[in-house]
């Protein structure tokens, strides 16, 4: 099954390279990796999705901790969390087909964000499953191009959020 890891890292040059280098060196094949800013300008946040059958999430977590610039790692797979992926899908659509695309988009609460003579761009946000479903329905029309952000995740409520406190990580849980 897929595991979702949240990593907080120091916002310094080269940190993404260290993480990517680690995955390559340990032969960890990952499904997706998303990096972005957080509420703290000194900290960046990564959401990493791995297929546990290909690589054990526990090993990814333990190895990420070895990087000096990684502050905290948490596997939120079995925690109550909101996970989202955003996709832009360019679909071939003649003027007569636009209505069909628009209908499908509205069912999925997706948006048409660009219209050209023979194509439209659909923007959809949601879980991976939801995006996959829309994609399957759009394919017969002709998907010309697609880009996805990869999954991002956040814990629900204010309970076991990502821990910023040094020492509160999972070193000894294993």
């Amino acid at each position, binding site marked *: 099954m897929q595991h979702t890891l949240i990593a907080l*890292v*120091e916002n310094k040059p*080269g940190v993404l*390279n*260290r993480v990517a*280098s680690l995955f390559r*060196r340990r032969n960890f094949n990952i499904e997706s990796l998303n990096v972005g800013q957080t509420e703290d300008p000194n900290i960046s946040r990564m959401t990493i999705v791995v297929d546990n059958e290909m690589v054990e999430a*526990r*090993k990814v977590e*333990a*190895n990420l*901790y*070895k*990087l*000096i*610039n*990684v*502050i*905290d790692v948490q596997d939120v797979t079995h925690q109550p969390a909101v996970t989202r992926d955003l996709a832009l899908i360019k679909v071939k659509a003649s003027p007569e087909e636009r209505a069909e695309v628009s209908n499908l988009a509205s069912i999925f609460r997706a948006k048409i964000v660009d219209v050209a003579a023979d194509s439209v761009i659909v923007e959809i946000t949601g879980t991976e499953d939801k995006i996959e479903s829309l994609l399957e329905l759009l394919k017969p029309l002709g998907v010309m191009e697609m880009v996805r952000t990869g999954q991002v995740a956040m814990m629900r409520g204010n309970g076991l959020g990502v821990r910023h406190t*040094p*020492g509160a*990580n999972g*070193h*000894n849980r*294993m």
Partner: protein
Amino acid sequence: MIKAGAEILWECMVREGVDVVFGYPGGANMPIYDAMLSYPVHHVLVRHEQGAAHMADGYARASGKVGVAMATSGPGATNLVTGIATAMLDSSPIVCITGQVHAHLIGGDAFQETDVTGITLPITKHNYLVTRADEIAEVVREAFYIARSGRPGPVLIDICKNAQIEKAEFAYPEKVSLPGYRPPAHAPQAALQKAAEMIAQAERPVILAGHGVKISGAAADVRQFAEKTQAPVASTLLGLGSLPASHPLNLGMMGMHGEAFCNIAIQNADLLLAFGMRFDDRVTGNLRNYAPRARKIHIEIDPSEINKNVSVDVSLAGDLKTVLADLNPLVGERQHAAWLAEIGEWQAESQERDIQSWPDDGKLYVPHVVRDIWQATSGDAILTTDVGQHQMWAAQYYPVELPYRFITSGGSGTMGFGVPSAIGAWFAHPGREVWTIVGDGGFQMTQAELSTAVQEGANIKIAIMNNNFLGMVRQWQEFFFERRYSAVEMRTPDFVKIAEAHGIPARRVDQPDQVAAAIEFARQTPGPALVEFMVEKEEAVYPMVPTGADLDEMIRRPLRQAALPAD
């Protein structure tokens, strides 16, 4: 206090206790070398930067302190790479300082520019690219802290030339702030309780002592634990010396070329206590049938090593010394007389097969030479080795009583390690007898450091085991490639003349009755000395666990030869 970046570097290194560095100057680190003249630091000019990294490594392993290697940008820095990887695989604390081109030139393929932080990323514990003088103090403080703490390892600092020259306000940082770096110390109480229960139930326990025993300074604690629980102790190659070799509970080395009785004991154990080791493929053999009836407890400071190769029943992530101190009160005294007696029988069988039990056939064997060096030095010299057959024989026949007596490249298996690591070890303990045992192949890889040894008056004794073969590869070709020898025969130069050309007194030995006198000649020679032993060409290291075989499926020394009657 305003200082140039290069001065800040030395201010910080002196405060870290650095009094000797191993290096080579060049265009991109000249300001560092210029500033060095004002500080109480001895610089050892190596002949190749690989030597600098190995010397820093040997110094670190012999002293327990951080070793320092220095190189210029580009080829200077890339020559360090093998030495850095060696230190990484063996968790050795070294700090490498490399010069880099001006910050504004980075990325422009300037003269002698190489992406050294990129190259060394996977083979350092951490590395830094410093572009400004005001970064240096904090970076050096962090680098030394990271190198020596937790699971130690190499840290590289790449300093741009402008950062060496520019001035900055210097204040030595009293503390390091590394929010993401928190090596575990104590293991959780529940896991300790579970471990104690398993120890109480075990009838056939074996302790597996790794390099972590020395790094954690836990040799005395391991001994106390072993004596209390009457659990015999098997050592990894880097764990040798964890328990005194003469201790009745010592089983010697485990693994591919470990003692047969030691491997058999591990395969028949009902509990393995892994202390600061990582179940390397060279110690487990076939993982699927490794110690199949044993429950396993793993104490290890690097959580990523736990359940990496071998699944364990209890994991105690923490510092070995700390965890043993926590575990000890929970464990009662045990007796395992039947188990120890059983191991004793296997040990007797092993001794019967041992080459030391052979009658003298007039030939020169490495095990005999190593044992003679051991006797002459009372087993108390610091011994470094190169890599190959002689390394395994040194591990088998130079038993040590203390940690940090036996220094060798384990995880990386780096040929060329022997001579420079001996020079580094001598700088750590200039009053102590230092020997290095090397093969004719590996010796030639870093032979140029003979010149360094002479320039520094390093009192090291070099024993070359010359079989005119790359012996370990030859052995594999003999066993697994139907004796089809491919690229293993090696014509060697006259090593005695090479030594003499350096001003190093040297002798060649080809008869067993010359060995003792040659060893004594080396010991009595002030400063470096070299002895070349013309040893039996096609002797094999036994026992041997072939790759992929179970740990107790060993190729043994033929009993027939061992049983030859003495005449």
